[in-house]
């Protein structure tokens, strides 16, 4: 007997049922989920040799050298005689090399999502990766987001929020994405000699998006102070390497000659620490701030349970975060243990990524070719690692269930159903994917369809499969 609890565990909290996932469970669903969230291995992509941050840095360095030699990119006078489209093409060659470097990560991540038994852990990876978005939407970050997710996110989900935050903020991908790598303390040794100045982008997003949240009670002065404290964190590129003894080329490094001297004051507390210890101390305090707990709790409950999350659940998650000083396994365990997690009458409307991954899991077809993946992600409107802003992808039905979005899903389903080799009849697949959540009306529609292709399209597009 397959229970609705099993469906919730696999479909809402995980990435969707593969054929056979909804057979009678050998252990309780909650225990199975709890095991995933305390096992470091469950968060990793096994058996892949994917590049690391210094390899990404080398690819970026090559791009920057090529760019320096190209008039279309460096913005010289010749640029103006080219149309925007021609200029785009002139940029495209060097960019393409970075895309080719980054793409195996998209493929590996998708193939892992299709096959992993640890759907809950993987959804947690997606949640935190989105919370700390690094998008390949600017040239400087193109080689990095997959590397970032593996190095800064996947490896830090069984420790504390504080450790996760420090890993994220100091990763070269984040330093580049939010312009920190270029920020210079105006009163620092190098700032006084060479000019340049502060860039407050990372400081603002740490406060607004990563920690206390936009209503967390900070001011413009706090943003600027945090930006000053963060100066020094940059990338050990060619020119700066001599100033960072011991640093690995292309990795992040703290360069004291860029750091704004003096004590800082953030959210009412003074920080007299020198050098990199100053920003670390501020970040650790931000990670402990109750407003951070509440901000994370609201987002977590929204992602896993409902667009308007149950207040009791938000309270429980907030309390857990504050009591344990942001211990992530405890926080995730609180989510599993709370009764509201298991009741959500309307469920969550799937994001395009959820829809694609769950469709591929449900049908059990061969993993898509890289070209098919690019087309699918593009058509559905959610290309991995290309979130539209540092706030990440939206997480509500109002953003994903627009008229056009439904049509794009229908069109993709049609294309996919026409090409996949099915091993089961569409109705059997729908039963395996949805168990007791499959409605009589969908059963009827699939049974009456005029072809297997149409039956599969209707199953994938059914109201219950569009939700989790």
């Amino acid at each position, binding site marked *: 007997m397959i229970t609705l609890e099993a469906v919730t565990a696999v479909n809402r909290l995980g990435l969707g049922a593969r054929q056979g996932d909804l057979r009678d469970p050998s252990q309780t669903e909650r225990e199975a989920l709890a095991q995933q969230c305390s096992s470091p291995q469950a968060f990793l992509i096994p058996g892949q040799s994917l590049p690391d941050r210094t390899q990404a840095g080398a690819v970026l360095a090559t791009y920057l050298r090529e760019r320096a030699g190209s008039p279309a990119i460096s*913005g010289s*006078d010749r640029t103006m005689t080219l149309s925007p489209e021609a200029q785009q093409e002139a940029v495209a060659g060097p960019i393409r090399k970075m895309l080719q470097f980054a793409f195996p990560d998209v493929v590996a991540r998708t193939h892992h999502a299709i096959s992993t038994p640890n759907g809950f852990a993987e959804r947690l990876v997606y949640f935190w990766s989105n919370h700390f978005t690094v998008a390949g939407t600017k040239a400087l970050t193109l080689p990095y987001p997959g590397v970032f997710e593996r190095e800064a996110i996947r490896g830090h989900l069984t420790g504390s929020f504080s450790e996760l935050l420090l890993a994220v903020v100091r990763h070269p991908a984040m330093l580049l994405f939010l312009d920190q790598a270029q920020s210079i303390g105006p009163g620092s040794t190098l700032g006084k000699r060479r000019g340049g100045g502060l860039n407050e982008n990372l400081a603002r997003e740490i406060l*607004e998006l990563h920690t206390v949240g936009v209503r967390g009670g900070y001011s413009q002065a706090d943003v600027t102070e945090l930006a000053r404290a963060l100066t020094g964190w940059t990338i050990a590129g060619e020119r700066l390497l001599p100033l960072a003894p011991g640093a690995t080329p292309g990795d992040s490094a703290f360069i004291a000659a860029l750091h704004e001297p003096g004590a800082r004051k953030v959210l009412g507390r003074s920080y007299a620490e020198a050098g990199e210890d100053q920003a670390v101390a501020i970040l650790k305090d931000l990670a402990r701030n109750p407003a951070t707990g509440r901000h994370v709790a609201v987002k977590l409950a929204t992602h896993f349970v409902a667009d308007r999350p149950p207040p009791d659940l938000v309270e429980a998650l907030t309390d857990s975060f504050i009591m344990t000083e942001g211990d992530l396994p405890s926080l995730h365990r609180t989510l599993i243990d709370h009764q509201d997690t298991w009741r959500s009458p309307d469920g969550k409307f799937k994001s395009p990524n959820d829809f694609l991954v769950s469709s591929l899991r449900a049908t059990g077809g061969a993993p898509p070719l890289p070209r098919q993946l690019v087309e699918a992600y593009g058509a559905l409107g959610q290309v991995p690692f290309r979130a539209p802003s540092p706030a990440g992808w939206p997480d509500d039905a109002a953003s994903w269930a*627009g*008229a056009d979005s439904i049509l794009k899903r*229908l069109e993709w389903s049609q294309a996919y159903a026409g090409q996949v080799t099915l091993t089961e009849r569409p109705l059997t697949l729908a039963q395996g994917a949805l168990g007791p959540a499959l409605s009589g009306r969908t059963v009827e529609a699939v049974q009456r369809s005029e072809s297997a292709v149409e039956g599969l399209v209707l199953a994938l597009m059914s109201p219950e499969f569009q939700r989790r």
Partner: protein
Amino acid sequence: MTFSNPSRRALMSGLGGLALATSAGQLAFARSTGQKKIVLVILRGAMDGLAAVAPYADPHYRPARGRLALSLPGEVEGVLPIAEGFGLHPRLEFLHAEWRAAKLAILHAACSPYRGRSHFDGQDVLENGGDTAFGLRDGWMNRALGLLPATASPKAVAIGLASPTVLRGSTPYTSWTPPTQPDVPDSTIARLTDLYAGDILLSPALAMALETSALVETQATEGLERRRGAGGLGGYRTLTQAAARILSAPGGPAAAVISLDGWDTHANQGAASGSLALRLQSLDAALASLKQDLGSTWHDTVVIVATEFGRTVSANGTGGTDHGAGGAAFLLGGSVRGGRMLGDWPGLAPAALLDGRDLSPVNDLRALFAGVLNQQWGLEAADLRSKVFSGGSPPSPLSGLIA
């Protein structure tokens, strides 16, 4: 999806459960209100208003902007002169021509009532029409459309971003983004429509999407560039072309909201050339294409181009600009009374800046929005104050915007 097949079109008209349920009289009425169009172009990411519309004669302009400052009118790559002391960015040639034809008006030093510096909250206030981020769950354009007479077809279309906050709410709207995938058989669409009956989220979404696609696809589609997102440079024109087709179709919607991404220029934004210049050039080309593709409908169309806030007056340490306050907005169209700057100008003197860093947002964008709604659709000032805009004291509509 392509709609080359006539039976598909026949199906579309039947599918509009909306269309079936209304009387012929309402349809005729819909057509008359739909003739007056409003296009809202939202530049997401905070366009640098001081780069688009440069106060080149202000004594503080050149020192503050440094290498981001544009050259004087008449110099190589100089600004295109408009009102005294102001010039358009040299890549905004179409907008300059519209200014000289007195069809472009500019509201500078403008912002919603939002005074923080978050994109996400800033866009929310710009679109919700109140004075608090996430203080309202629906958008001002949706509430304004709700005051228009009922129509058989959707009153608005979202282009580029499928569900912008400004269109969220109880008035149905449709949406469009560039097509990428093959055709779906009629029979599957019919069965899916049956399966969605009673699903309040999916049923209307599917019906409206099919009708909107039909509007774009029944006309020639060869000109549409495919697979370009709202953030790509060529993509801007794809989106305005689609908007023109949907708006100018018989019974087409009264409003379009077009989202254009990519304006957050924290680093190396350039001056007369460079990354921001390319983006401005693409915006200019997209607006030119909108005018051309709308044909005679252009005379009944008012286009508002707005952004969530401006950027810092001074260049930052990395050749870009950070989040600021007062920005620039454009108003153009066949019947706009243009060739002039609207509102007040606070200047760039350090004492006049907000928090010592940002162009003071002395002009409330809601006054511009309300003025357009008032004069283009005939919405009453009292209704605009009580039903469309809210929070604090919503400003009076700007008058005399449209001839």
